[in-house]
């Protein structure tokens, strides 16, 4: 995908992430300049999610699970494997094991292709973040 087109797709979606939206979602926006969308979700155990959105939306975003200071999250994860501490492809690298994550589609579940979800309502960048933050908040103490 041409970078300009990916940037246009990114900018269009990120435009909806207004200060009011971030406040109600209880997100701190650390960066929202193409190709990076980086937020910290407020919680008793806040988590930072950094999405690299090159080739959006031809590719799902690559998602890093971080501490608020930007270091890799190494503490306990929520039950279930959506927030995964690391698998056979990247043993020591946490990854998101959910549709909408590049690692899920390209490394761990190659048979569940991103094209199935691309462009669907709720599977944009903010939608993916809402799902992940919602899962974190529901399942983390």
């Amino acid at each position, binding site marked *: 995908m041409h970078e300009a087109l990916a940037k246009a797709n990114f900018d269009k979606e990120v435009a909806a992430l207004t200060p009011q939206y971030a406040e109600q979602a209880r997100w701190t926006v650390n960066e929202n300049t193409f190709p990076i969308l980086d937020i910290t979700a407020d919680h008793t155990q806040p988590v930072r999610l950094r999405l690299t959105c090159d080739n959006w939306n031809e590719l799902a975003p690559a998602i890093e699970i971080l501490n608020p200071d930007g270091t890799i999250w190494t503490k306990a994860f929520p039950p279930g494997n959506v927030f995964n501490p690391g698998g056979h492809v990247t043993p020591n690298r946490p990854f998101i094991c*959910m549709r909408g994550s590049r690692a899920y589609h390209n490394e761990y579940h190659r048979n569940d292709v991103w094209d199935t979800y691309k462009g669907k*309502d*709720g599977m944009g960048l903010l939608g993916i973040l*809402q799902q992940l933050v919602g899962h974190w908040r529901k399942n983390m103490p």
Partner: protein
Amino acid sequence: MTGPPQALKFNMGDEEKHKHEGHHHHHDDEVAVSVITPSGIYPDGEDYHKAEGNEKIKHVLELAAKKLEITDTKDWVVFVKEHGKDREVHPDRTFHEEHLKGIVELDWHLREGGGGA
């Protein structure tokens, strides 16, 4: 000429009282709703949508979907923040049935899913 105006005044007083009571009752039953979705915030992030407490949550979600041009909400879920935790609410219930009063901020999105979910 004194009769009708007095009657009118009397009636107006009753109406005003009724209106006031109704108005008061109306406020008690009213909820101010804002919805965040993957496509933006409803109604606009500056204000709240006023809904009746006995109104089904899904009615407001339908308005949000229409305004934000969301067509496929199959498998979507709704959460509210409550005592620091997120609680799932049922769109087919009313705000009051879900014990929602005052300002209600809904988080509406696709349920997470995939190999790990």
